[in-house]
């Protein structure tokens, strides 16, 4: 039972979290277009659904709070309140509080904060600011005006086929059938029992076919309006007379059901139109299709259909750890697979060896003077050659099957990865609000354009990418986009533009943050670097503009304040780069002074399995992620130059600084002779190229990333581990960490 409750709570929280994301985007949409009925209905639906769900799982504070929001939104829907920017801000705050409440509940706590009372106060004032308070569901407005006659429309009754057949049966027995609607007096002391009194009275005088709302519902809550469908031998006046109980009842409406009326009822029922409810309380909160109807009015009708259609898609909610487990198993499979591939290669080599040796052997045998019957010898030769042919055939079959397993495991890998993919919308949806808030704080006008929200990224990356993006966007608003006055004076549009765009490109996801602000001046960066003595003057003076831009990603390039004065960039950019590189991506920049800046983030499709270049250093396996490899060349010793005690490789008229892994990891000196073959793996470091020298390269492979406990294992340059084909452990190299570590040491030495 407890498990069941837990599950319910879990389901509610999951749904609520996704709903409040919608809430924010709809509210922001409303800010631009306050009369957008679609968005109004959407926010109302969200508040209503959360209220209902919270009630079901007993999160009372959430229920109460959303109830208030729902009231306000209902008034907005009914045009009693206009949505000003202030009101939107209040509602956005309410949304944030709601999120905090949900978060607290998810952690098993109840959120308590003075902000709740503050926000509730504003909401309540907003609500009471409308003179003839719009009815809240619990206290219908009509209560104040009992003189108004009760309306009864038979075609709106939710009658089932069974009810209709009961009516038909009664009519065929020459009985009268009436539909009676009573409006009860809610001031009456014993109002809760009114409907039961009516029930027993009607029951005495005939048969009750239907009660709306049902008895169960009447038992739990008082309803002002109750409808009975009864069959009786008495006439209409008699029934009306008998049941009009003073004090209890305010008004009665009665419809006589004859055969004509019945066919009308039947036809309205068979059109498939869901009958509208007579009172708002007549359905449970959890009923979603019903909830939509609560939105009343025809204008949300098409949306209803769309939502219903969406619900009909067959989806399966699976907890993410189950997919992770699957992925782990898949990882094991990939490792086992590479063992087989290795074995297959070995077999291939052995087969060739045996074939050549056998040829020599057989040739040799011919020259020997063997004793014994020639036939026996020839027979044995045949047997041997048959056995070998069979063995080779088996090898071939093995090889075929290895390839088959390869194919299956790659498509399995693709499919499981796909399961972990979520639209980047989950990340992007949080930004419009953020940009709006920062821009209004800074008195800037900014238009945020978001493209490619449907691009899918690995669920594990969602949280990791959020911080760097927020950093870039904040920088773009804060330092990139100029104030409206400055923009006007430069002949630019007053409203700055920030474009956030995601797209798939080959094996990676590319996210671009582009602004049309003031751009970055590379020369200013050079001066800054010279002033802080971050690098050697000679190095800095030789740097091209592209390389200079890379400086902003260096840790400690400068503090926020200094950079703001100088160029307006660089605030925590080293952290941005670090975060992105941690998830296997890289970040680049292009800028035109006065025109704007573009940051390009490239991320791998997935986190769990990467393509890596397997290498061997001092007998140990290492992996360099293919994403950071530009090319691999064999070093020609003639092209090595010694500069300031460090080697550099001349490659196509460019000098690339190099570092040897055996020197970095094992402290062994790097020296190259004509006889040894060394490889240089050219990697990208910001905008520069750096060569990593290794002696043995095995090749490209699928690498299953196994995390290392970095609290306990602190080895600069090693980001994670993997298990290679033969079961040994290999280390995954973080090239930029190695390079920056190496350069730092280099700078120190000078």
């Amino acid at each position, binding site marked *: 039972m407890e498990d069941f409750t837990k599950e319910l709570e879990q389901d509610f929280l999951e749904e609520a979290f996704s709903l409040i994301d919608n809430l924010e985007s709809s509210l922001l949409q409303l800010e631009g277009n306050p009369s957008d009925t679609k968005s109004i209905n959407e926010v109302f639906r969200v508040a209503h659904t959360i209220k209902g769900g919270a009630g079901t799982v007993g999160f009372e504070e959430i229920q109460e709070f959303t109830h208030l929001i729902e009231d306000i939104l209902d008034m907005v829907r009914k045009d009693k309140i206009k949505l000003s920017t202030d009101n939107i801000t209040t509602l956005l705050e309410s949304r944030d509080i709601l999120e905090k409440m949900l978060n607290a509940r998810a952690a098993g706590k109840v959120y308590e904060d003075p902000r709740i009372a503050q926000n509730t106060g504003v909401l309540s004032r907003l609500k009471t600011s409308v003179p003839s308070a719009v009815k809240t569901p619990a206290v219908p407005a009509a209560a104040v005006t009992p003189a108004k006659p009760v309306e009864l429309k038979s075609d709106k009754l939710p009658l089932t086929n069974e009810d209709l057949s009961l009516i038909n049966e009664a009519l065929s027995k020459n009985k009268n059938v009436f539909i009676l609607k009573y409006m009860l007096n809610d001031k009456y002391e014993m109002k809760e029992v009114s409907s039961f009194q009516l029930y027993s009275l009607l029951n005495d005088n005939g048969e009750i076919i239907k009660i709306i709302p049902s008895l169960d519902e009447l038992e739990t809550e008082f309803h002002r309006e109750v409808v009975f469908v009864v069959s009786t031998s008495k006439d209409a006046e008699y029934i009306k007379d008998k049941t009009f109980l003073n004090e209890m009842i305010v008004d009665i409406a009665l419809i006589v059901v004859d055969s004509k009326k019945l066919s009308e009822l039947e036809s309205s029922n068979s059109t498939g139109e869901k009958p509208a409810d007579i009172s708002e309380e007549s359905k449970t909160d959890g009923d979603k299709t019903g909830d939509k109807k609560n939105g009343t009015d025809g204008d949300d009708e098409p949306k209803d259909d769309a939502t219903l259609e969406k619900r009909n898609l067959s989806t399966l909610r699976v907890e993410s750890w189950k997919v992770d487990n699957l992925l*782990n198993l898949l*990882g*094991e499979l990939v490792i086992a697979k590479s063992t087989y591939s290795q074995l297959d290669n070995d077999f291939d080599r052995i087969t060739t060896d045996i074939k050549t040796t056998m040829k020599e052997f057989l040739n040799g045998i011919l020259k020997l003077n063997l004793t014994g019957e020639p036939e026996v010898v020839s027979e044995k030769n045949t047997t041997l050659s048959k056995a070998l042919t069979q063995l080779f055939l088996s090898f071939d079959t093995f090889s075929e099957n290895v390839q088959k397993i390869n194919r299956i495991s790659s498509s399995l890998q693709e499919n499981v990865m796909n399961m972990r993919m979520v639209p980047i919308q989950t990340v992007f949806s949080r930004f419009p609000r953020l940009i709006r808030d920062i821009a209004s704080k800074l008195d800037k006008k900014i238009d945020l354009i978001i493209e490619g929200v449907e691009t899918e990224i690995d669920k594990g990356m969602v949280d990791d990418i959020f911080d760097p993006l927020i950093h870039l966007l904040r920088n773009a608003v804060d330092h990139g986009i100029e104030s409206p006055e400055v923009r006007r004076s430069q002949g630019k549009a007053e409203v700055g533009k920030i474009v956030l765009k995601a797209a798939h490109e080959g094996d990676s996801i590319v996210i671009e943050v582009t602004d049309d602000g003031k751009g970055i001046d590379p020369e200013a960066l050079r001066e800054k670097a010279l002033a802080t003595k971050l690098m050697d003057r000679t190095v800095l003076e030789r740097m091209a503009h592209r390389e200079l831009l890379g400086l902003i990603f260096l840790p400690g390039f400068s503090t926020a304040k200094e950079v703001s004065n100088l160029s307006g960039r660089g605030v925590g950019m080293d952290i941005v780069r670090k975060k992105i590189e941690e998830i296997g991506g890289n970040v680049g920049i292009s800028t035109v002074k006065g025109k704007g800046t573009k940051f390009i983030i490239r991320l791998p499709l997935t986190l769990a399995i990467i393509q890596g270049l397997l290498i061997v250093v*001092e*007998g*140990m396996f290492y992996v360099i992620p293919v994403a950071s490899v530009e090319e691999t060349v064999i070093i020609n010793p003639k092209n090595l130059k010694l500069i300031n005690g460090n080697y550099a490789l001349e490659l196509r008229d460019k000098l690339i600084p190099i570092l040897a892994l055996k020197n970095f*990891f*094992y402290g062994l000196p790097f020296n190259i002779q004509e006889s040894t073959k060394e490889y240089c793996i050219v990697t990208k470091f910001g905008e520069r190229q750096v060569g990593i020298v290794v002696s043995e390269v095995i090749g490209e492979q699928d690498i299953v990333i*196994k*995390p*290392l*406990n970095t*609290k*306990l*294992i*602190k*080895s*600069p*340059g*090693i980001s994670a*581990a993997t*298990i290679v084909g033969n*079961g*040994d*452990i290999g*280390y995954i190299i973080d090239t930029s960490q190695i390079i920056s570590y190496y350069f730092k040491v280099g700078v120190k030495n000078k």
Partner: protein
Amino acid sequence: MEENKILNKKIDKEQNTLRNQNILFQGIAFYLDDNIYTLDVMYIRSIITVKKIFRVPNTTEKVLGVLNLRGSILPVYSLKMILELDDPLKNQNVITDEEKFIIMVNKDKDVFGIMIDSIYKKIVATNENYREGNFLKQWAKNFIFGGVLLDEDKEILVINIENMLKYMISLK
């Protein structure tokens, strides 16, 4: 049958004796060279024989390396090096000494191995035989010990996992 009865009686008697004392914790006692140490079983996930251990470059020699335990890659420490005893296994790129044992320890979310020479026995600490040892902490390297357990004529040092983990995390 008769033998069993005697055995049962003996166990009953032992348990009775234990019941009269306050059991503090149960531990696994093990050898490092000729010394005996013990670890609270609560933190012991498993005891395994040595599989291949791969040294991680540029790490302290107190970390012997990492091993692959059912798909997880976990660090293995040399308790000898931590206690400033000499460990012949230190600085080997790959360790394959199958005579040795590794105690896999699980403290909160951190899982790591401790290389030991051999298992001595299971041991029960009661308020009778266990002394908390603040006195041990006066030596810097000894702050990883929580107390001393008397077992017949032997004095067994009890490792305080929390302190040991803190020490490990502090290692550069």
